[in-house]
């Protein structure tokens, strides 16, 4: 019949017209500022630095090994090592970055820095409301702006964080055992 296909199509749009009023499967739009989607555990946007303990700058896990700077595909990470070792949150002497800058306008959220980091020091954030009117300095994040506590990381990526924490505990335990197994220094400490 002439026009049967057109009528079929009209019925289809009419079904969708009606369906969009009651079927969430059809009307998938989320009215963004008022409602937001539930967070997805694996989602990644931009990197941040993890620190332990209370002092953000002292507790940074980053040891300025420069691997992420080298591997970053768009070359948006910029690190300068600190010359001297500084005490970390446990009081242990560590190398730390003096400057750790990420240019968020260049970062392409690939997450390769996270994969290559041997110290679990850099992780992916889930923030996305970062618009600013200053496209240069406003999107250049230094280590103070990048530092986030480990609890924050645990909140974002539960599974990954528990694995990381377990691994770090294990390493710490091993290191302690090794230190205990070592014969006391000649002359004796204490």
């Amino acid at each position: 019949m002439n026009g049967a296909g057109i009528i079929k199509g009209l019925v289809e749009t009419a079904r969708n017209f009606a369906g969009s009023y009651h079927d969430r499967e059809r009307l998938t739009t989320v009215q963004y500022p008022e409602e937001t989607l539930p967070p997805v555990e694996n989602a990644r946007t931009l990197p941040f630095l993890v620190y332990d303990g209370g002092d953000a700058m002292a507790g940074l896990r980053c040891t300025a090994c420069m691997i992420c700077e080298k591997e970053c595909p768009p070359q948006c990470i910029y690190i300068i090592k600190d010359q001297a070792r500084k005490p970390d949150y446990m009081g242990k002497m560590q190398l730390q970055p003096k400057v750790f800058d990420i240019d968020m306008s260049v970062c392409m959220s690939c997450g390769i820095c996270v994969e290559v980091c041997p110290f679990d020091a850099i992780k992916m954030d889930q923030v996305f409301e970062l618009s600013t009117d200053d496209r240069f300095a406003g999107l250049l994040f230094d280590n103070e702006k990048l530092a986030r506590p480990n609890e924050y990381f645990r909140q974002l990526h539960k599974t990954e964080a528990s694995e990381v924490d377990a691994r770090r505990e294990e390493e710490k335990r091993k290191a302690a055992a090794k230190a205990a197994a070592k014969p006391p220094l000649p002359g004796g400490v204490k």
Partner: protein
Amino acid sequence: MSARFSPPELAGTDFEHPLLEVSLGPHHPSTHGVFRMDAALDGETVVKLKPVFGYLHRNHEKIAEKCSYLGSMPFTDRLDYMCSLTNNWGYALAVEKLTGLAVPERAEYIRVILGELTRLINHSAVVGFLLQDMGAMGTPLMYAFREREKILDLFESLTGARMMCNYMRFGGCRCDLPPGWIGQARGVAAKFPLFLDEFEALLTGNEILKARTEGVGVLTPELAVNAGVTGPMLRASGVNYDIRKVDAYGVYGRMDFRVPLGERGDVFDRYMIRILEMRESLKILDQALRDIPDGPILNLNAKLRNLRPKPGEAYGRIEGPKGELGFYLISDGGPNPYRYRVRPPSLINLTVLEDMCLGQTIADAVVILGSVDIVLGEVDR
């Protein structure tokens, strides 16, 4: 076998029939990005049509020669930004051929699942865009995007990103499936046929769509093969060539699926082949989601950093949603590829654009371009 190849004649020198020269693009609404066609029209009939490229050129290949092997992986996402996962797969396959890394079985299954989901996204969106070019006010496109959202949700919960997934690694995949993912994917795959039925009810029988597509932009199988056209476009011309079958890469050898072949090679066949391929993809998805084994997802010998393959070369290719996506790598033993080349299906499928458009009207030229399925990120690289 002799394929027709006529050197393009310059139109516009004949002053008895003055021609209207129009430049369609690069900001024309239906050139799918910054693509341009220099057309000469006689009335509304196309007598010359030259594609012009390069507006999105960023020399992806040169960037890759300056990056480590791993560093190019996120850049491949941006080639054909509709289907980042198949791009990842093609590149990973080429590097695995170069280094001889084996891929664990579970990872191969994950790759097949993701590849077929990507095909669903791409084909449904392409049909939507095609109808948009025909002037359908974006309704089919919106339906396609509605379903695409559900698949992108799957991608996000697995890879962390909706479009720029950066998921495959040399010798496996980056991370394992999160708990519940398989069930969620099964749900999406089970509901997709309903959407396809709806889509077909809206489109396939539509008289206007038939009138606009039947007999338009016919591509003969001889020309298609000679011009290196691949993917659904080639199969719409009736040539049986699907790299999933020919190379049986990944675990496609174990999958039971068929390759639909067109009859006349016109725009309608190209539309229909994509719909039929989506139905076959759903079959593959069902099998892969059913049979996926447990096990590691990354080869234990795989190196993330400092990958230095032995000097040599390799060409890895997969059946991307748009056609044969190939990566050609030459290693000189260093940490960066000496030569990195992408064989972009979108670009090579455009070779026959002029042949298909000559003698058709300008409205048809737009529809034919829509049926070729290009993404400018890949055409221009």
